C-alpha cells in the first residue's frame, strides 16, 4: 500500500500528467458513448437506461480515483467508509423513492 502510494507520488512529480489526461479522455469518451446510446441507437428503454446509468457510475469512479485521490491520507479508510455510506444513503433514497412513488411501469 505505502509502496504503491510512493510510486503514485513519484509519477505525479515527474513530467506529463498521464493520470489526469487519461481521466479526461475516458470521461469525454464515456459521455459521448452514453449520448450515442441514448440518442443514436434505439434499444428498448429499460436497456438504454441500465447502460447509461452504468456508464455514469463508471465515470463517477474515474473522477473519484483519477482526480480526487480518494485512497490518499494517513487513514484513507475513514473517508472511504464515509463516502461509501453517503453513496448507500443516496442510492437508498433515489431507488426507494422511485420504487414507492413511481412504480407504474
Amino acid at each position, binding site marked *: 500500500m505505502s509502496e504503491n502510494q510512493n510510486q503514485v507520488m513519484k509519477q505525479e512529480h515527474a513530467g506529463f500528467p498521464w493520470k489526469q489526461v487519461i481521466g*479526461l479522455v475516458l470521461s469525454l469518451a464515456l*459521455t459521448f458513448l452514453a449520448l450515442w446510446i441514448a440518442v443514436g441507437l434505439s434499444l428498448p428503454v429499460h436497456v438504454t437506461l441500465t447502460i*447509461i446509468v452504468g456508464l*455514469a457510475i463508471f465515470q463517477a469512479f474515474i473522477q473519484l480515483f483519477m482526480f480526487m485521490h480518494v485512497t490518499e491520507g494517513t487513514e484513507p479508510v475513514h473517508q472511504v467508509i464515509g463516502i461509501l455510506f453517503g453513496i448507500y444513503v443516496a442510492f437508498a433514497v433515489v431507488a426507494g423513492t422511485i420504487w414507492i412513488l413511481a412504480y407504474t411501469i
Partner: protein
Amino acid sequence: MMDSLLSQKNKSTLPLEYSTEEGDLRIVGFWIFLAAELVLFGTLFGTYLVLQSHTAGGPNAHDLFEIGPVMAETIVLLVSSFTCGLSTMELRRHNNKGLIGWLIITILLGLVFVGLEANEFYTYAAHEGATLSTSAFLSGFFILLGTHGCHVSLGIVWIIGILLQLRKRGITPVTARKAFMVGLYWHFLDVVWIFIFTAVYLTGWVI
C-alpha cells in the same frame, strides 16, 4: 509501534496538505461533508425522477432539452474538472504559479458553465414558457439544476478566495490543504453533473 509507523508514513510519503494533524483531519471531515452533499443531491434526484412525468400540460423533457447546449455545458465542466486536477498536480510539485494558473482557468471554465446554464434557463422561461411554477416536472428540474448551479457559483467565489491567499502566502501546509479541498469540491460537482446529464437529459431524450 503503530504510532511510529504512522508518523513515518506521514512524513516520507504524504503530500504537504496531510503534513499536520489538523490538515489531515480537516480533509477527512471534508469528505464527510461531500458524503452529506451526495445525500442532499440524492433527495433532489429522487424528487425529480418521480415528478418527471408530471408535466401538467406544459412542455416535457423532449420539447425542452436540446443536445447542443447540454453537450457544451457537459464538456466545459468535464474540462474544468481536468484543469482542476492539473492544479492539484502543480500543488504537489510545490509550483505556486502553475497552481494559480490552472485554478484561474478552472474558474473561467466555471463561469462559462454558469453562463451557459443561465442562458439555458432563460431560453426555457422566456421562449417556451417553462418556469419553476409551470409544472411539477419543471419545479423538480429547476430545483435540482439550480442547486447544482449555485454550488458551482459558490465554488467560483471560494476558489477566488483561495487564489488571494495563495498569492499572499504561497504554498504552506494550510494553503495547500485549502487548495486541495476546493479541488475535491470542484470534482464532486462534476460527479453530480455526470448524474444530472444521465438522469435528466439523456433519460429525458430516451423516455
